């Protein structure tokens, strides 16, 4: 004959936790049946309250798809934690009797969100904003534990009398009833069932419901379970088991200090607010007094959150309630995170992750989810290693580090600034990526290698090259090179090629910063630029409107790098490409303008040829074409204009004869083109236009405009209504 005691609790309610503790001590069961998913059973064995610090969570997941998972959180003030600890101390079995997550996942994608907390609704009706306060007020009337649990059961029966339940709840409760029946059939004398109070009326049925002949086979998918550290911030959010709680720090205080909770909590609050207000112990004392006074006035049996808030506003913050917004996160939620012993991190990758953080003196990130930043100097080997580590986590999509933008723009800079933050929930991402390897480095390397073997697209390969470069994987360079050699041949997009070339040059130039062996890419570069130079003349014809801008930018970028003179024969490839364009590109557009310019610079053309070309362009083109051509012509500076009188006069004539409308339309583009050139060039040109000769006296500064130009500007301004 065995005895079954049903104990209804409020999930994560400190009052419930204290009561359960007392009850278990009094009752002394030889088995505990806990409302927890049955597929969490195998991690119960590794639970050790003396080596783990709450808050922690049991993570139950589908090993084939980590997105499908459920969390079972435990805080120090959770009745569930108390139950687990009791079973550990007394060495009695604890069984998880709720429907397995595997079954729920089989039926649909996510575990449904828990219903609106019935206790919250009851509290509100009674005029309490603080559920714990309401619970304490109405249910903590006697010291007799049994009586209280009976009251709770009665309350729940009334509440559920006419309510309709979701099919998931019905299924779960049927499963739990079955589990209770199974336990009663075994050799236990005193069975304690600990479940959310809401389920009590259904579970009481275990006596009446017919036990099925064989247990119904439930369809479920296989799941894995593991312990992970959790945080109060996560507990605040409503997910996993039980509704979210709004004030983890307060509940913690209630559990630890019971009647003196207010005193401790207000003192902590005072400490935080001391950052902005001069608060003394006297303030704390007055705050506690006021909280008590309010409690009495409001006829409540204990101090709750509303009293605390009002008291702190009035005494510590001079009547201003804005402290709740500014400090609310720290004061109400708290930054506490739990920990589990290292040997429970069954996966080597998790251990390696922690080891790397420790060697970088960043273990603090694991304790508190507060952001911090770190500046690295890549000339130091330790920092270089850390930088590679951060990039490896980025490759693996582990949300740990983000680089601050400004350090990127300084190419070849040794300095990097990183923003770091660790959310304990991301632990499961570590679990997920451990399928790639046993250390962060190995996992990142394998992930990149896998991606390399799978792709043929040159853009992807270049991206992977970039990643390998940043992660410090110079050993992958050979694979990447051979891949590139194969794929560049097939690519027909000059844009992709140019992008690749630019990346390669960047890696080549700055490789020595990150890699121990500077990469040897000239052979590859040679081939690729050669191909670009072959493709460019034809590509210009077939290129899309929207791609033109990108192409221009890529060409500019390339020229900027080639200018440095480090790759002389690469430049010569491009030069022949432009010559080709000059000779055969009939259209008057940016490219022909650019081509003309480059050939002029190279000295490949003689004077008369140039003049003929220019006249031709001036006479046959319309304004839009002309402007595009000019943009190409002027790229790289206008200094030569100053010396070229003939061109200057032709240009001048053309502009004066232009339609006002078109001139106005294209003014921005013209302005941009000229604006890109250095100021000294512009002022020299300006002087030349005005005076007809160069300015030999450099002390002269901006003059007034020539009459025609001034007139033109005036009419434009009038036109615009300025």
């Amino acid at each position: 004959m065995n005895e079954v005691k049903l104990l209804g609790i409020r999930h994560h309610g400190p009052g419930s936790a204290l009561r359960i503790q007392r009850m278990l001590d009094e009752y002394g069961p030889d088995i505990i049946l806990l409302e927890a998913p049955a597929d969490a059973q195998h991690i119960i064995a590794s639970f050790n309250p003396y080596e783990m610090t709450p808050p922690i969570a049991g993570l139950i997941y589908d090993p084939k798809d980590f997105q499908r998972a459920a969390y079972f959180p435990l805080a120090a003030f959770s009745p569930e934690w108390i139950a687990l600890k009791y079973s550990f101390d007394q060495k009695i079995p604890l069984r998880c009797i709720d429907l397995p997550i595997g079954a729920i996942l089989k039926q649909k994608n996510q575990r449904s969100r828990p219903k609106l907390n019935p206790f919250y609704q009851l509290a509100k009706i009674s005029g309490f904003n603080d559920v714990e306060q309401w619970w304490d007020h109405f249910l903590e009337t006697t010291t007799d534990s049994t009586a209280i649990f009976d009251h709770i059961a009665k309350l729940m029966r009334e509440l559920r009398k006419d309510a309709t339940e979701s099919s998931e709840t019905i299924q779960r409760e049927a499963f739990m009833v079955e589990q209770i029946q199974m336990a009663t059939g075994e050799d236990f004398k005193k069975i304690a069932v600990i479940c959310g109070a809401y389920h009590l009326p259904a579970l009481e049925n275990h006596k009446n419901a017919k036990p099925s002949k064989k247990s119904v086979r439930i369809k479920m998918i296989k799941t894995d379970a593991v312990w992970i550290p959790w945080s109060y911030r996560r507990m605040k959010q409503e997910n996993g088991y039980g509704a979210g709680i709004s004030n983890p720090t307060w509940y913690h205080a209630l559990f630890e200090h019971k009647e003196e909770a207010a005193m401790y909590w207000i003192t902590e609050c005072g400490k935080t607010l001391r950052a902005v207000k001069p608060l003394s112990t006297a303030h704390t004392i007055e705050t506690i007094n006021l909280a008590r006074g309010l409690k009495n006035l409001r006829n409540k049996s204990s101090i709750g959150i509303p009293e605390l808030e009002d008291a702190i506003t009035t005494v510590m913050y001079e009547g201003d309630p804005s402290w709740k917004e500014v400090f609310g996160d720290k004061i109400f939620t708290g930054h506490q995170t739990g920990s589990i012993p290292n040997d429970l991190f069954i996966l080597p990758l998790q251990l390696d992750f922690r080891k790397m953080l420790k060697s970088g003196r960043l273990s603090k990130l694991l304790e508190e989810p507060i952001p911090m930043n770190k500046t690295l100097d890549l000339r130091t080997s330790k920092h270089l290693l850390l930088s590679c580590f951060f990039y490896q986590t980025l490759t693996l999509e582990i949300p740990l580090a983000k680089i601050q933008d400004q350090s990127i723009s300084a190419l070849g800079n040794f300095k990097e600034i990183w923003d770091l933050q660790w959310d304990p929930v991301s632990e499961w991402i570590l679990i997920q990526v451990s399928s790639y390897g046993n250390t962060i480095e190995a996992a990142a390397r394998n992930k990149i290698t896998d991606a390399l073997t799978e792709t043929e697209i040159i853009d992807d390969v270049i991206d992977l090259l970039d990643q390998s470069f940043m992660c410090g994987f110079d050993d992958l360079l050979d694979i990447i090179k051979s891949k590139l050699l194969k794929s560049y041949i097939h690519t027909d997009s000059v844009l992709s090629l140019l992008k690749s070339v630019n990346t390669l040059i960047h890696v080549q130039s700055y490789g020595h910063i990150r890699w121990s062996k500077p990469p040897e890419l000239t052979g590859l570069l040679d081939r690729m630029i050669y191909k670009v130079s072959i493709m460019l003349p034809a590509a210009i014809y077939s290129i899309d409107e929207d791609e033109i801008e990108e192409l221009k930018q890529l060409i500019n970028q390339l020229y900027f790098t080639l200018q440095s003179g480090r790759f002389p024969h690469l430049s010569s490839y491009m030069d022949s490409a432009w010559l080709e364009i000059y000779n055969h590109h009939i259209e008057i557009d940016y490219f022909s303008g650019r081509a003309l310019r480059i050939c002029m610079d190279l000295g490949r053309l003689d004077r008369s040829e140039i003049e003929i070309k220019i006249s031709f362009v001036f006479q046959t083109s319309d304004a839009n074409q002309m402007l595009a051509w000019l943009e190409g012509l002027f790229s790289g500076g206008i200094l030569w204009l100053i010396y070229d009188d003939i061109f200057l006069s032709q240009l001048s004539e053309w502009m004066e004869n232009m339609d006002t409308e078109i001139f106005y339309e294209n003014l921005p583009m013209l302005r941009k083109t000229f604006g890109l050139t250095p100021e000294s060039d512009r002022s020299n040109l300006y002087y030349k236009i005005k005076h007809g000769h160069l300015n030999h006296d450099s002390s002269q500064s901006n003059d007034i405009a020539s009459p025609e130009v001034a007139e033109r500007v005036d009419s434009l301004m009038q036109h615009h209504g300025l």
Partner: protein
Amino acid sequence: MTDTKNILKQRLEDKYQDELNALIKTDSGWKPDNWKMSPQSVLQFILGNVEVNGVTISPKYIGHKNLVETAIATLATQRALLLTGMPGTAKTWLAEHLAVAISGNTKHLIQGSSATTEEDILFGWNYASLIAKGPHQEALVESAIYKSMQGGEICRIEELSRIPAMIQDNLLSLLSEKLIVVPELDNEIRAHKGFNIIATSNDKDKGTFPLSDALKRRFNVIQMPFPSSLEEEVNIVRYKLDVETLPLSVEIPVKEIERVVQIFRELRSGVTEDSHQKINTTQSNLSTAEAISTLEHCIYMAGFFGEGRVTANEIAATLPGAILKDIEKDSKPWEEYKKLVIAKRPDWQDLKNLL
């Protein structure tokens, strides 16, 4: 006493005699020493809307309940109470009503100003008597605080921050020690239980002496807010108009009340009620009390000079007076408001045409 019918503003203890008696009679909760009723009854008196012993208790303060609870709890725990906020947020009003409920009278009052002296705070001397007979008890002129300490009653200090800093400092030791020393008589007066201070102050005004940290620490501070929503403010205004105005049987449509309150709110907050448009605010303080008196003005105008009904005519006549307190600084925002907001609202055209 003087004929109450001729008095302009009745003493609260007379006005609410019935209510107070009813509350005292049925009072059952714990009472701090020398309080006339329990804190719960004080709360009922202030919040009203309840019937006690056959007497309807009218609401005195319409606003957040927990604000009033905090004020009462403060006084019950023997801490001094400071009510701060913009003018017209019912600071003095609340202080008076708390005093009458707790101590049964409102007689102990110090009106703070830059002319307030030490004698007003502690005690003074009848100099003729002093010189004639030397220092003796009868020559002492007791201050309001002195008397309330002796009687164990509430003393109010209005406009605390208008009192010069030097004089404010007298309150420091008074509030900590709860005693006044008279060195000339080698005597000290210790406060009787039930003594407490309710102070009001408007820190944001010009010409004030902000309280030192040491003095602030001796008070629990409550910031009196403006009503948070249009609806709340309209309710307050309607209630006050019902109670306060002469029985002239003048009709005042709710629409007009809403209009005036909305104009005041928008000019006060700098943004339209629907939060779509930013407006320049006026320097003038457009509080709820100001709205109430403007509408009272409209009622009287309609009653004596109009048609017995408040219309846009009366509103247009009184609004500028309320809004343009500083001609230089307030004209521009007011003109903009008329052009950008009033003109754009179709159902406010009647007002626009009259302004």
